[in-house]
């Protein structure tokens, strides 16, 4: 074990959380608590830096609990988990920004943190001045920056404006310059948190490529992102945090797919028995399911075909025409499309089970998080007889087969395969 970059031993971090203030229903109560509040405030603020009996108290929140792991030099470690899982807290402890409440870690070599793009940027200063200020804040010396200066400017693509005040820059220019500074750091260990979610497509491609090249140079990288595709593309190993605990560790594609499936399975099938099924006067929803060919992949990728299956039980004695209509929304709340069986030739249904199957074609859906936002059953093409929200939700992963556009990032609500043809010569000018 001579190649260790970071080793942590049972790192924990507790934060004090605010408990609810008591409410007052009398003026006297309000006044007396207002008078007493300085003392109470003082006690709360004083406790901000002590963790006495943190184990037992309910107003502490454990952002991290007993996290132990190791990284070797040259490894690129992805850290995944839901919001609030403790990913950022872990990075902050390793970068010495905050101290652990208990536990310890040892870091071999220089470590640089990229928890935010543009840390220490001052808009009153020129681009040049910001390169030096931001660079030294990130731990470089003036000499190192002098050496890297031309490279930074070239990478940022803002040569012309380098002596202009940064407040006259566009947002994109600021981000590009800031990232260029950060990218020029040459420490053995880099810690990167969610920096890929900003900037335009071109910038994103550049920054992913930069991180990939860092990894290829044998640098140790800790990388936190919600962009699982990027994690899969860049990292060799991954750990998963859940409510502050390390729950999974291993080869990146394994950890990601277990993470995804544990996350996705909960929502891709809803199956009920007759008693518990969501129902209206007219019908019960027995099953809603998303199906796809999982022989090759254990999760959906952009461009994969899939189908929705809806099983109902009609409570109506007479025959009716029954149709399903739903709204598919993406993570940005765009309505991707409205699925409706109203377009089809109608079939009459009487009491008993019936099933609708809706096929979504290949080469159509883009990556993203989707949900069947609104879901209706319609009788005789006019009356809504059953209504349910958020019936299914699912994730479509970035597809590595379709390297169109840029790496890892979603561009466009859908990603259809279009029918192209090329004409040349005389015909092209007609």
């Amino acid at each position, binding site marked *: *074990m*001579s*190649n*260790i970059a970071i080793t*942590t031993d049972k*790192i924990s971090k507790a*934060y004090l959380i605010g408990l609810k203030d008591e409410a007052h229903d009398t003026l006297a109560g309000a006044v007396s608590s207002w008078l007493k509040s300085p003392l109470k405030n*003082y006690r709360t*603020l*004083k406790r*901000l*830096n002590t963790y006495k009996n943190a184990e037992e108290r309910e107003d502490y929140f454990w952002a991290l609990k007993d996290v132990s792991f190791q990284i070797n*030099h040259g490894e690129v470690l992805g850290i995944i988990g839901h919001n609030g899982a403790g990913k950022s807290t872990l990075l*902050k*402890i*390793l*970068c*010495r*920004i*905050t*101290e*652990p*409440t*208990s*536990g*310890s*870690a*040892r*870091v*071999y*070599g220089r470590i640089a*943190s990229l*928890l*935010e793009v543009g*840390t*220490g940027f*001052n808009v*009153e*200063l020129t681009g040049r*001045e910001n390169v*030096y*200020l931001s660079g*030294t*804040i*990130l*731990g*470089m*010396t*003036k000499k190192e920056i002098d050496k890297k200066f031309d490279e930074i400017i070239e990478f940022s693509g803002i040569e012309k404006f380098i002596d202009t005040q940064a407040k006259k820059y566009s947002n994109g220019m600021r981000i590009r310059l800031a990232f260029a500074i950060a990218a020029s750091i040459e420490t*053995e260990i880099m810690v990167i948190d969610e920096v890929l979610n900003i900037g335009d497509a071109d910038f994103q491609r550049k920054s992913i490529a930069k991180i990939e090249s860092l990894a290829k140079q044998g640098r140790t990288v800790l990388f936190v992102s919600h962009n699982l595709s990027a994690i899969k593309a860049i990292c060799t190993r991954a750990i998963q945090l859940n409510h502050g605990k390390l729950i999974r560790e291993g080869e990146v594609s394994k950890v990601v797919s277990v993470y995804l499936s544990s996350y996705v399975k909960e929502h891709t099938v809803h199956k009920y028995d007759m008693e518990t099924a969501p129902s209206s006067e007219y019908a019960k929803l027995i099953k809603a399911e998303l199906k796809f060919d999982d022989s090759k992949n254990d999760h959906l990728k952009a461009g994969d075909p899939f189908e929705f299956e809806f099983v109902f039980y009609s409570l109506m004695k007479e025959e009716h025409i029954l149709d399903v209509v739903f709204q598919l929304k993406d993570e940005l709340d765009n309505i991707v499309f409205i699925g409706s069986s109203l377009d089809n030739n109608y079939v009459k249904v009487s009491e008993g089970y019936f099933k609708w199957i809706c096929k979504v074609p290949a080469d159509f859906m883009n990556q993203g998080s989707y949900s069947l936002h609104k879901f209706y059953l319609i009788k005789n093409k006019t009356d809504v007889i059953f209504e349910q929200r958020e019936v299914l939700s699912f994730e479509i992963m970035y597809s590595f087969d379709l390297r169109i556009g840029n790496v890892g990032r979603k561009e466009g609500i859908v990603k259809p395969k279009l029918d192209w043809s090329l004409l040349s010569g005389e015909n092209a000018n007609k």
Partner: protein
Amino acid sequence: MSSNIIPHFDITVKKKWKLFDFKELVKYKDLLYFFVLRDITVLYKQTVLGMLWAILNPVMSMVIFSVIFGGLAKIDSDGIPYPIFSYAAVLPWTYFSQSMSGATSSLVGNAHLLTKVYFPRILIPLTPIFSKLMDFTIAFSILLVMMFVYNISPTWNVMFLPLLMILMILTALGIGMWLSSLAIQYRDVRFAIGFMTSMLMYAAPVVFPASLVAEKFGETVYLLYGLYPMVGVIEGFRSSLLGFNPMPWNLIGMGSVSAIIIFFSGALHFKKTEKIFADVA
């Protein structure tokens, strides 16, 4: 690569007791330089008068004091013409109050850095201590002009001026370390700093001579008065530059003792609390 050869650091709950990590400070000296440069560059950006403000502020104080305390209240000024008597005090006082309040609000003002990146936290309150020296230097030139106008030449004691400045810087930094580390946890400090500064000003011999204290309350109180470091600094400035009185070594001695106490206790409190800055910022 072997882990024994690579330099490493440990992250633990209990750290070795070390007031200043000089090795680390040397490593980060460039950062201090750029922090100070930022402060100086940004300070007078988008102003019409620019650096003239560094002169205008102390000069206006001097004018007000001369009219009210020198002209109306007729406060005794040890035989020194009142305008230069007060300016010799306003000069160190302006530096002291500005660097002190700058240091006090520095941590809160740079909270976004504290939560995002590691560097020795002490650099943040240290920055105004250095950057305000520039205003001090500019304002000092006015004192030289006034001395020329009043035909006053400095005494040999002027060689002790750096010592007085160190005393002044030590005090400002000491209080700055105390208040900045308190302010990030208890934001009350921000509201208190205003009246505290004016209280401290009237407590210092800015508009009156320290000899007035000896006259009214006797020698013992006068000596104890010296425990406020700015007393020795201000009277020292007057003596060494204007030469009307001998150097008040007893005041300076008393002030040095308390300045050193303020400085080290401030450093200690800062050290003790700095690990939670990111959590409470």
